[in-house]
């Protein structure tokens, strides 16, 4: 087990600088540090990590929909090329009014991630430039990566099943009917 000296030192530096503006600090394991902050502080935290501490590489920005807790969780994953630590900075965004600061002036590639989140989760980033449509086209439904977007319902409403295959919706049953076999009891449970 590698020692966690560098990781603990980083937490101490951040704690001294930001006091109670960051919370839930934890060393998950060797080379992984988690912390949480607020949308007001996120730019300051990211800029401090990048400019002062040398977390130059933005690996990833992710978004998780915690619908039952009424929040989106944005996760900024940074990497230090010399210290070799990944920091996961998390921030909660209100699900009913999802607005988060735009950070593409810190890292240009954040632009793509934010455009994708705007499209897939409906999170607004004030001042974000770039085409409105990244992956989807003419989309006016609920943003599709939200948990309450019903994929099956969308398919039923917008697509037609190919005609002539009405009987083939349930493969196992159809085969059984055609061949006159009986479906065993254990298989019925999983047939659909």
């Amino acid at each position, binding site marked *: 087990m590698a020692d966690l000296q560098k990781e603990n030192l980083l937490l101490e530096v951040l704690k001294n600088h930001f006091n109670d503006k960051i919370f839930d600090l934890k060393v998950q394991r060797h*080379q992984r540090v988690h912390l949480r902050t607020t949308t007001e502080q996120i730019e300051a935290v990211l800029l401090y990590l990048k400019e002062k501490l040398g977390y*130059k*590489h933005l690996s990833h920005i992710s978004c998780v929909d915690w619908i039952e807790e009424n929040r989106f969780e944005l996760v900024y994953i940074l990497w230090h090329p010399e210290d070799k630590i*990944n920091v996961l900075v998390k921030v909660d965004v209100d699900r009913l009014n999802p607005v988060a600061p735009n950070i593409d002036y810190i890292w*240009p*590639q954040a*632009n793509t991630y934010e455009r994708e989140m705007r499209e897939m989760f409906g999170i607004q980033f004030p001042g974000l430039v770039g*085409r409105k449509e990244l*992956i989807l086209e003419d989309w006016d439904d609920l943003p599709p990566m939200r*948990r309450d977007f019903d994929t099956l319902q969308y398919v039923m409403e917008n697509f037609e099943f190919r005609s002539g295959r009405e009987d083939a919706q349930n493969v196992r049953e159809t085969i059984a009917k055609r061949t006159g076999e009986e479906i065993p009891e254990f298989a019925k449970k999983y047939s659909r």
Partner: protein
Amino acid sequence: MRKQKTTTIYLGPQHPGITGNMMVKLEVDGDTIVKAETHIGYLHRGFEKLMERRNWLQSFTIVCRICVPEPDPNEENYARGVEEIEGREVPEKARWIRMLVLELARIQAYLLWYGGQSASVGLYTIGQWSIGDRNYVLDLFEELTGGRVYHMYIWPGGVRRDLPKGFKDRVYKVMDYIEKRLDDYDRLLFDNAIFQKRAQGVGYIPPEKAIEWGVVGPPLRATGTKSDVRIDEPYEFYDQVEFVVPDFYKTSDVWARALVRRFEIRQAINIVRQVLDKMPEKGPVWNKIPNPHKWRIPRGDAYVKTESARGEFGYYVVSDGSQFPRRVHVRGPAYVHGITLLEKILVGQNISDVSMIMNSLGTCPPEMER
């Protein structure tokens, strides 16, 4: 003064620079690019959404389809992410087999790259050779996993089955053969005046900006930066094998990236040999998982990453304690390389060099859109 006129050219969605469909909208003045804009959306399959409705084992069959030329880093990342949240141990032999698969995948990805890179400058012979030779590696995969391209082999807890009898010997033979063939490729591609003249000085990435712009993998190493996930954060048993990370090509153009890959395919062959030598003969290859329908992963999240043939390939896996993933988010190197970076470095280049630059960055639409 006459107002400068530009023409708009749509390059794609089908063109030879990449594996998949993607369009680059170019504003050109004569044949010099003034502005480039990447348009994706032709290949979106919604895998991340699909995985929310599949259980942890069903999701494993989806992840390999995210990247067509190199599916194994996906499988390994997903498996390692799940194992990290759950705290599941992986048997020693399984980890060696994973390394073997990853390195074989790197070799076949580089052989495919040889074809794409040379075809983008009009040299089609190399592609026919290297893709023919790549089939020998795919034959090995077929024997080991049952699939040639999508393997579905590395799964949570280990790998799906042990090596077949006599498999090691066949891997040694294929490695010897490919190593011999690499000299032929050198003569055809790297000694070729066409490729030398066209690749040198084209597609320059400023080294001081590279890390900030999110460049990873061979393009970053071609700026003279020593960066490799296998060294920076050794996963599996990469700390027990010896290999050199090329940080001595510093010109940061298409030529340097080609040299980095040329060097690395030889390193990968060496790693495969070391893995075969060090792999234990006997032992379990799978730490059995419970009934997949009832298999719950405790609440938690993990970011795991692999060095793929195109750079850092990361997975952010989140579990909410149920038998379905809450979120599996893929960080592919092409997501940055193919959009923001490409749009930047294409400015000032020639139209005919676009597909060459895209190929040298490892642009891969299936992995951008998931």
